[in-house]
C-alpha cells in the first residue's frame, strides 16, 4: 500500500504536527511526512512516538522524509 503523503515543508508551527495528528487519527498508516525544519522533525517524531507508532528517517538533503509505520 502506498504511504499517505504529507508535505509539511515551510509550514508554521504547529501545522506539521496538526496534519500528522489528523492523519494518524484517521488511520492513514503507512504515512510519509516531508519536513524541512529540525523543529518540525522533532515535533512530528515526538508525536508519532507518543501515539505508539514507529518512524524512520530518509535524509534527502534540503528536507527529510519521516516514514511512519505501525
Amino acid at each position: 500500500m502506498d504511504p499517505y503523503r504529507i508535505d509539511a515543508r515551510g509550514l508554521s508551527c504547529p501545522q506539521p504536527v496538526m496534519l500528522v495528528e489528523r492523519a494518524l487519527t484517521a488511520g492513514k498508516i503507512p504515512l510519509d511526512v516531508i519536513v524541512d525544519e529540525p523543529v518540525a522533525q522533532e515535533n512530528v517524531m515526538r508525536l508519532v512516538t507518543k501515539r505508539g507508532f514507529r518512524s524512520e528517517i530518509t535524509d534527502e538533503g534540503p528536507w527529510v522524509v519521516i516514514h511512519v509505520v505501525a
Partner: protein
Amino acid sequence: MGICVACMERDIAGALGLHRVPTVQYLRPEIMGLVLGAFIAALLTGEYRSRGGSSPVVRFFLGCFAMVGALVFLGCPWRAILRLAGGDGNALVGLFGLTVGIGVGVWFLKRGYSLGRSMPRPYGGGWILPAFMAFLLILLIGRVSFSPGGPIFFSRVGPGASHAPLLVSLGAGLVIGGLAQRSRFCTMGAIRDMILIRDPHLISGVGAMLLAAWVTNILLGQFRPGFTGQPIAHTDVLWNFLGMVLAGLAFVLAGGCPGRQLFLSGEGDMDAAIFVWGMIVGAALAHNFNTVSSPAGVSPFGPLAVLVGLIFCLVIGMTQRDRP
C-alpha cells in the same frame, strides 16, 4: 525586571526615536543578545536557514497588535510569568487572558488557518535582522547621537533608566538566546500544545522559568503577593484580561511568542523578523496613539485599540487559509 520582550522592544523603539516618551527609551542589549545568541547557536549547529515569504504584511500587523495588547496589560507572556513569580496577582488575570486568546487561535488552526508556506531563500536574507541587532549594539556601546537632542535616546529617569550593566544584559541575552534556540522555548507554544495535542514538552520550560524566578525572588526578598502596588502593573481586570487575549491570539496566528520570534529571526526566519519589526513599530504607534496603560490604569485609547486588534485578528483568523 528580568526580560520582558514587549517592554524591551518598546524601549528600543523609544531609543530610536520612533516614540518620544522620555521614560522608556533604551537600546536593550537583552533583545540584541536574544537574537544574536540564537543566530550563533543556529550557525554553529547548522540550523541557520534563510527562509521567508509567508504573508509578511499580515505578520507585521499581527506583531503590531500583539504589542498593543501587551502594552495594555503591561507585559508580554515572559513578563506575565515573571510578575506572577513576584507575587503579582494581576498576572493571573493576564495569563488567563493569554490562555483564552491562545484557545481562540487554536480554534482557527483547527479550521484550517494558515499563512502559507515559507520558502527557502538565498543565504544572506536571514542575516539582515541579526546584522541590524549588531548595529544597534554598536549604537548602544558608542552612545551614538545623530543630531543634537536627537536619537539615540537614553532615558534618564523611569523604567528606561533602569537597566543592568551592559555586559550582564548582553551576556544574559546571548546565553538565553542560544539555549532557547536549541530548546525551542516558546511560552505561547507551551499553552497552545497543551490545548491542541496535550503535549507538555514546552510547558516544562515555562514551569522551569516560573520556578527559577520564584525561588530567586524568595531568596532576594522580592516576593510580595497581592494585587495593588505591584511594580509597573495596574489592577483593571477586564483590560488586563482582554489585552492578553489579543496578544495570545496574535501570537498563535503568527506561530510564536515574542521571544520565539526573536530566536527564529536569529535562525534566518525572515517572517519572524517581520513580526519582530511589527512589534517594535506597534510599540511606537501604541505610545504615539496613547493606547499604553500605566500603573494608574488603562489609557484613553487602549481599550479601543484592543477591540480593533481583536477584530483584525478574528478577520485574519477566518480568512487566511490555504486553498485545498
